[in-house]
C-alpha cells in the first residue's frame, strides 16, 4: 500500500426525476489512485466528468458502484459507504478540498475564515491564527482586507481566501478543482509553490488545472478521464 | 364594642353554613394542615357578602368555630373598620359566639392584611382572607402549569419576580404578598399581608389557615412551621422600617399606618394594630402625638 486515495471501478450516473427519470451517466469504471507526494491531474475536455470525480472523492456526490478508499492513518475508509459522521471526520483532518467557489459565511472576516478551518483541522488556536496570516500574506491578499468578510471581495480575492482555507491544515489528501482559475500569474506561482511544498511533505493531490503552466509545474501524472466516459448515454 | 349575643339568630345553621358544608371545609383544612403551604381546592359557597369582603376567610372561620370560641376580626390591623365590624357581627348573630378585640383573649382571629403585633400563642387560630392564592400567577397564568410547578417544586420562576423587582427598583420592592417557602417545600402567597409580618409566620405557635373564596382554595401553616421569605444572597429579605415610632403609643417595632388628622394636610403615623396601640396606652406608654 498504500494509496492515500483509490477510486476503484467507480460508476456514477444522475437520474433526473424531474425530467421523466432521464439517466445521465457521468463516469463508468473509473480507477484513479493518489500516493503520497503525487499530484495526479485529471485531464480531458469539460463535461468529461473531472469535477464529478473530485466530488465523489470528497463524498459530495454519491458513488453508485465501486469503492472510494481513503487512507486515514492506519485505517482505510470507503467513502462510498461510510457514514456521514465518518466522512465529516475525514474532511476535518484527512481530505481538504478547494473548489472555485467560496461558500461564505456572512459576517466572518477572511483571516478568521481561514483560522477557523485550521482549528477545525485540529490546529491549536494560536497556530491556526499564525498560519492563516502567513498564508494570506503569501497569497498577497492586502492586509486591510483580512478582517473583512470575503463576501465583499473580488473573485480573485475570494479564491485566495478559499485556497488558504484549504491549505491551512495538515490534510494528507488535497482535492483541488481549478484553484488558480481566477488568479494572476504572480499568485498562480505562489499557489504552485504551496502545492509543491505539500507534496514534498508527503501529501497527495488530486486536481483539475486548466492553466497549462500550473499543470506542468505540479503534475506528477495526468489521468485522462475521457477513458472513464460512458460509451453510450442511455 | 359589640355586645355579646349568647343566643344565635334563629332560622340559620350555627355559624351560617350547613353542617355538610362545614365538614367538607374541615376535610380540606385537614389536608391543608397535613401538607403545609399546599393549596387545597374546596367547594366554596356563596356567602351573604360580596367577593373581596373575605368570603374565603368567613367560610374557614365558620367551619372551625365552636360555641366556646372567642372571635376577633381585624382588617388592616383594625378592629373597627366596616369589614371587621360586619364579619364580627355576622358570627355574633349566626353563632352566638363571644367576640373580642383583645388579641390575647381571642381563640380565633380572622384577618385581612395584618398579623397582630402581640405574639400569638398555642391554641389560637389565625384565619387569613386571601384574594389571590397563587404566588406563581404573576409569571404563569395557566393553572395547569402552576400546579405542575408546585408539584415539582420548580420555583425558579418565583425568583424571577424578585429579580424583576431589583432590576426595576434596585431592591426587592414587593411589600405585600411577599412569597414564602413553607416547611422547605411549597411556595405560598401570604397575600395580602405586608412583608413586615412575614417573620411572624415563621415558627408561630398558632395555627394559620388561609381561605380564598373566589378562587376556592384553602391552605395552612401548622404551628411551629418554618416559613422562609424568598430572597437573594446579595439582596436578603428585610422588613420595612419606619423612621419614627407610633405617634400615639410610642411603639418603635410595629407596623404603622399614616392617618390624616385634618383638612390642612396634618397627618401622623400610628400603629396599624389598634388593639396593640390601646393596650400600650393603657399600660402608660405615650407617643409624641398623644
Amino acid at each position, binding site marked *: 500500500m498504500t494509496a492515500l486515495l483509490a477510486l476503484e471501478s467507480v460508476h456514477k450516473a*444522475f*437520474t*433526473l*426525476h*424531474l425530467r421523466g427519470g432521464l439517466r445521465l451517466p457521468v463516469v463508468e469504471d473509473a480507477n484513479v489512485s493518489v500516493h503520497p507526494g503525487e499530484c495526479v491531474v485529471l485531464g480531458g475536455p469539460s463535461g468529461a466528468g473531472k469535477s464529478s470525480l473530485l*466530488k465523489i472523492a470528497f*463524498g*459530495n*456526490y*454519491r458513488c453508485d458502484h465501486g469503492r472510494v478508499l481513503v487512507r486515514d492513518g492506519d485505517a482505510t475508509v470507503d467513502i462510498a459507504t461510510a457514514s*456521514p*459522521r465518518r*466522512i*465529516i*471526520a475525514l474532511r476535518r483532518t484527512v481530505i481538504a478540498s478547494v473548489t472555485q467557489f467560496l*461558500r461564505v*459565511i*456572512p*459576517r*466572518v472576516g477572511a483571516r478568521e475564515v481561514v483560522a*477557523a478551518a485550521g482549528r477545525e483541522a485540529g490546529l491549536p488556536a494560536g497556530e491556526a491564527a499564525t498560519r492563516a496570516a502567513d498564508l494570506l500574506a503569501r497569497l498577497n491578499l492586502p492586509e486591510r482586507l483580512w478582517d473583512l468578510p470575503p463576501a465583499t471581495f473580488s473573485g480573485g480575492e475570494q479564491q485566495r481566501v478559499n485556497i488558504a482555507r484549504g491549505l491551512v491544515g495538515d490534510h494528507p489528501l488535497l482535492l483541488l478543482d481549478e484553484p488558480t482559475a481566477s488568479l494572476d500569474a504572480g499568485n498562480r506561482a505562489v499557489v504552485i509553490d504551496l502545492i509543491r511544498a505539500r507534496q514534498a511533505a508527503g501529501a497527495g493531490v488530486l486536481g483539475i488545472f486548466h492553466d497549462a503552466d500550473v499543470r506542468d509545474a505540479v503534475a506528477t501524472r495526468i489521468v485522462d478521464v475521457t477513458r472513464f466516459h460512458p460509451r453510450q448515454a442511455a | 364594642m359589640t355586645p355579646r349575643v349568647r343566643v344565635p339568630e334563629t332560622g340559620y345553621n350555627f355559624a351560617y353554613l350547613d353542617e355538610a358544608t362545614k365538614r367538607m371545609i374541615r376535610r380540606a383544612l385537614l389536608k391543608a394542615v397535613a401538607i403545609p403551604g399546599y393549596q387545597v381546592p374546596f367547594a366554596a359557597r356563596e356567602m351573604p357578602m360580596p367577593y373581596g369582603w373575605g368570603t374565603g376567610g368567613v367560610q374557614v372561620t365558620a367551619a372551625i368555630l365552636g360555641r366556646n370560641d372567642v372571635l376577633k376580626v381585624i382588617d388592616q390591623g383594625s378592629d373597627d373598620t366596616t369589614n371587621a365590624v360586619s364579619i364580627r357581627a355576622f358570627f355574633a348573630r349566626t353563632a352566638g359566639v363571644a367576640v373580642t378585640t383583645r388579641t390575647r383573649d381571642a381563640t380565633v382571629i380572622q384577618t385581612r392584611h395584618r398579623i397582630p403585633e402581640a405574639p400569638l400563642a398555642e391554641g389560637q387560630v389565625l384565619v387569613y382572607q386571601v384574594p389571590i392564592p397563587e404566588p406563581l400567577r404573576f*409569571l404563569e397564568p395557566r393553572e395547569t402549569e402552576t400546579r*405542575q410547578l408546585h408539584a*415539582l*417544586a*420548580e420555583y*425558579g*420562576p418565583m*425568583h*424571577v419576580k424578585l*429579580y*424583576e423587582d*431589583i*432590576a*426595576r427598583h434596585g431592591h426587592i420592592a414587593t411589600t405585600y404578598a411577599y412569597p414564602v417557602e413553607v416547611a422547605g417545600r411549597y411556595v405560598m402567597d401570604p397575600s395580602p399581608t405586608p412583608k413586615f409580618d412575614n417573620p411572624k409566620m415563621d415558627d408561630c405557635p398558632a395555627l394559620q389557615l388561609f381561605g380564598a373564596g373566589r378562587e376556592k382554595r384553602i391552605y395552612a401553616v401548622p404551628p411551629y412551621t418554618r416559613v422562609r421569605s424568598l*430572597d*437573594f*444572597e*446579595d*439582596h436578603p429579605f428585610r422588613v420595612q422600617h419606619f423612621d419614627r415610632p407610633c405617634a400615639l403609643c410610642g411603639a418603635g417595632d410595629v407596623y404603622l399606618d399614616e392617618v390624616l388628622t385634618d383638612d390642612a394636610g396634618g397627618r401622623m403615623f400610628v400603629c396599624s394594630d389598634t388593639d396593640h396601640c390601646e393596650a400600650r396606652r393603657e399600660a402608660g406608654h405615650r407617643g409624641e402625638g398623644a
Partner: protein
Amino acid sequence: MTTDDDAPLLRVEGLGKHYGRRLGCAGVSFDLHPGEVLAVVGESGSGKSTLLSLIAGEVPADAGRVRFRLRDGRLADLTELSEADRRALMRTDWGFVRQDATRGLRMGVSAGGNIGERLMGVGWRHYGEIRSSALDWLRKVEIGADRIDDHPGSFSGGMRQRLQIARNLVTGPRLLLMDEPTSGLDVSVQARLLDLIRGLVAELGLAVVIVTHDLAVARLLSHRVMVMRAGRVIETGLTDRVLDDPAEPYTQLLVASVLAA
C-alpha cells in the same frame, strides 16, 4: 476515535404519531452525536415540527422512543424518566428555540429576567451573579447591555430570537432543538442570526436538531440533513451530498425549487 466519541447523545428510534387518522410522522430514527447538527427539511405539513415536539416530549408518541445520554453516561429513555427529572433535563441540558418567540419567551419579564430564569431554576440565588451572566449572554447574542431591563415586546423579531437563544443556552445545554428559528425575519436579519447560531454551535460543541423549510439554512448550519415528506423520512445523509446530489424525486424537486441553496 474512542468509544466515548461514538456514543450518541440522542437516539431516536421508530418515532411515530397519529392525530386521529391523520399521520403526524412515522418510523423516524436517527442518532445524534455531540457537536452534530441535523437539519430536518420539508414543506409545511411534512411532519417535521411534529417530530420536534415528539423529541421534546411535548406531544406523546404513539410509537418508538427517544433516548438521551445523561451526564452520568446513562442512555435514558425519556418516557421512563419521572416528570420532575424530564423537566429538569429540559431546562438544563436541553434548549428549545421556537419559531414564535412569544411562546419561547416570557413577554411580561425583562430580557435579563428571561435569561436569568433558568439559572434561578437550577438554584442560583445571587442577584449580582445572575445579572452578570445575563449581561454576558446579551453580549454573546449581540443585544446591547442597555436593553437588559427592557421587555421583549419592545424588541425586533431578530432580537427576540437572539434573546430566546440566550435564554436557552445560559445553562450550557448539550442539545438544542430549533423550530424554524429564522423564518419570518428579514433576509439580512436572518443572515446575522444564522451566523450567530453557527458560531455558538461550533464554540459550545452543541448537538442541534433544526427544523427548517429553508435549504440555505440547512446548508449553512448542518452536517446532516433529513428530508421529510408526508410524515416520513424519504432521504437522509451528509448535507452537501443530499443538496448537491439528491437521489429522491421529491428531494430533487425541493432542491430545484430554490434559487440558490
